[in-house]
């Protein structure tokens, strides 16, 4: 019999993994569309384009990471699911929100910058490095969200 707290913790893990994953999927998708256009003109740029397309993919990983820690902490992995109090569960749910929302939005916007940088790479391949840096600027906020989510999850004593 699962407690409400445990179920809320599940909800937290689900939200973290899925929202951040959706952000990354949209971002990588946008960048990929721009990328195929550029590659159709010059297949040699595949390497550069792939790096740029991969950049918005990290939000999904961050989301997975928080989800995994929650799942690990409540004992899903080793098979002994703990009974959490409702407040513990809610705390874990709230803790997952920064990376869920931050990952969702920053993934989308990072994808847009990545797409623009892919066009930059098409016109001036020697400046691809700058495009990568511009794209990584957006990721800062996903990194910060990840950090605070992690600290919060870590702070819930079970």
């Amino acid at each position, binding site marked *: 019999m699962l407690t409400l707290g445990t179920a809320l913790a599940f909800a937290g893990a689900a939200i973290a993994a899925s929202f951040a994953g959706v952000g990354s999927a949209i971002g990588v998708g946008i960048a990929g569309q721009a990328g195929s256009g550029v590659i159709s003109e010059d297949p040699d740029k595949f390497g550069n384009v792939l*790096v740029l397309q*991969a*950049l918005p*993919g*990290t939000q999904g*990983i*961050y989301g*997975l*990471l928080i989800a*995994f*820690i929650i799942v*690990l902490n409540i004992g899903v*992995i080793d098979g002994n699911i703990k009974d959490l109090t409702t407040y513990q569960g809610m705390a874990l749910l709230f803790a997952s929100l920064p990376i869920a929302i931050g990952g969702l939005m920053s993934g989308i916007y990072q994808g847009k910058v990545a797409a623009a940088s892919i066009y930059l790479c098409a016109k001036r391949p020697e400046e691809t*490095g*700058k495009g*990568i*840096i511009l794209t*990584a*600027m957006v*990721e*800062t906020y996903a*990194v*910060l969200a*990840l*950090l605070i989510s*992690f*600290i919060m999850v*870590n702070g819930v004593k079970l």
Partner: protein
Amino acid sequence: MLIQMKKATLYALKEDRDSILLALQRDGNVMLIPSGDEAALPGAESVITEAEKTNGAIKFMDMHVGKRSFLASRTPVAYKHFLQDTPEAVDLAEQVAVLEEKIGSLRNEALTMRAQADALKPWQGLDIPLEKLAPTTFTNYFAGYLPELEKDEFLEEISSLTAETIVLEEAPEGRAIVVFAHKIASAEVKHFLKAHDFTDVVFPKRVGLAKAIAVDLTEAAKMKESLADNLEDEGIKIASRKEELHLYYDQLVAKQDRMALSGEETQKTFFIQGWVRADKTEMVKKAIGDTTSAFDLNFTEPEEGEIPPTVMENGKLSRPYEFVTELYSRPKIGSLDPNFMMAPFHFIFFGMMLSDAGYGLILTILLYLVLKLFNPRDSAGKLITVIFFGGISTVLWGILFGGWFGLEWHPLLFAPMKEPLKMLALCFGLGALHLVTGMCMKMYLLIKRGQVWSAIFDELSWLVMFAGLFFMVLLPGEVGKYIALVGAGTIILTGGRANKNILTKFLGGLLSLYNISGYVSDLLSYSRLFALGLATGVIAMVINTIAQMLWESGTVGIVVAIFVLIGGHIFNILINVLGSFVHTSRLQYIEFFSKFYEAGGKAFVPLAIRTKYVDVTK
């Protein structure tokens, strides 16, 4: 450090021009300055065309025998050999170009024929040879396509007229029909056809039944295609001589570089200018002196308004990090070369972000092999060396944090996952050191330029305040508080000194104290050191957990688990090396460089032998 540049001015005889340019190119120390109309030497045009042709030939060969890999080592060629003409390669390039064109035109013809044969498909049922389709004394004919929907209505309409219709098969353009009309009805038939969106067909100029012609065309197309295939085979044979074209291409590019700028000239003499490193002037003089004695060479300081190119020179360890700086922008002439201070931080931060000793070991060994075996040069070599150093740093941090392929094993310092606050403190500590270093570099720059007061008011005051805040936390008593107040006071009193009015001076000072928010956000940015390390560690942990679950599920599971382990960790290394490099560089650009760095230098691109395929040895 940044190298002093001198401007070289050379007057010499035109008859010596080729040998002088050759000598300068071999020496590789002069960057020629375009003068006046920037015209190239006569004949440069044909060299460029030839180079393009050769490049096309190499690409054609690449298509047939595969491309050389990005890291392939270059064939060494002695300089003497590099200068020799290679008539065989000239022929070869021509041969390949002709071959390529032949293949292209054969394929094109075949394509056209197939298209024509396709277009004849709906007409195969026509039992009248195409050449017989012509007006006679009493009849006119119309052949073409009628939209399917209009067909029945049209047939109905012309049934009363003196006309005969043959309805054939349907094509994408519509239903193929031929209408024969008596001349008296011709005008009416034409009118009906037009009203029903009829389009005329143009038959290929051939004799016979449509069916037979289509077969002929297909046969002919097949012939052409097999001819093209034979030529392709020939291309594969020829492609084994690719090396010759590689050398020839590099020779052409070198020649093209030599001919790119003509400088000014008179009937017998010419004159060129170029930038030379101040410490290399003697070498340039000697290089020219070895070829001729009839020349005049002067080295002068750059004039007012002239911006010489930026040359950075660094020790062996910090030189690869020039790549990171160049990715941002070269330093402006007269500012600071940041590499010697940036390199150690880049090294430390990269390792902290990757922070897994196992990954570090793999990276270090792999990149060491790449560096040894393929000897990549220029920016690729620098980038790989930077990551190679990063790998070493990763091993060190991995040992300190106890991370081995996502497993924890005897951390020397502490495990960041278990003690996040300690880890954050470490990140902010290193970040503060980084920022303070940046501010000290700005102070150095200001003092070097004689702006001692700016150095004290704008930089030292902040440092004093930070030191005070630091002591407030660490030392008992009031010492820290007073030191911080001295710093803050200096900022308030002097921050607005550029303003004229005493009141705005004071307000400006108060406002400049507000800059503290900038420093705080800079500092918080270093939390990414922890977050990225966390990402590496937890993803590795996820991979290990999945593999363990599979491992326990039986024999098949064990096999899959091995694949998951290998594939997963490779993926994790790739994605996190990318992340670590990008975010480490970002910390340099946004947080560190913003404190002191002056960008905007031009690249130093001397006239030199730049090869793509061969390695020219002395």
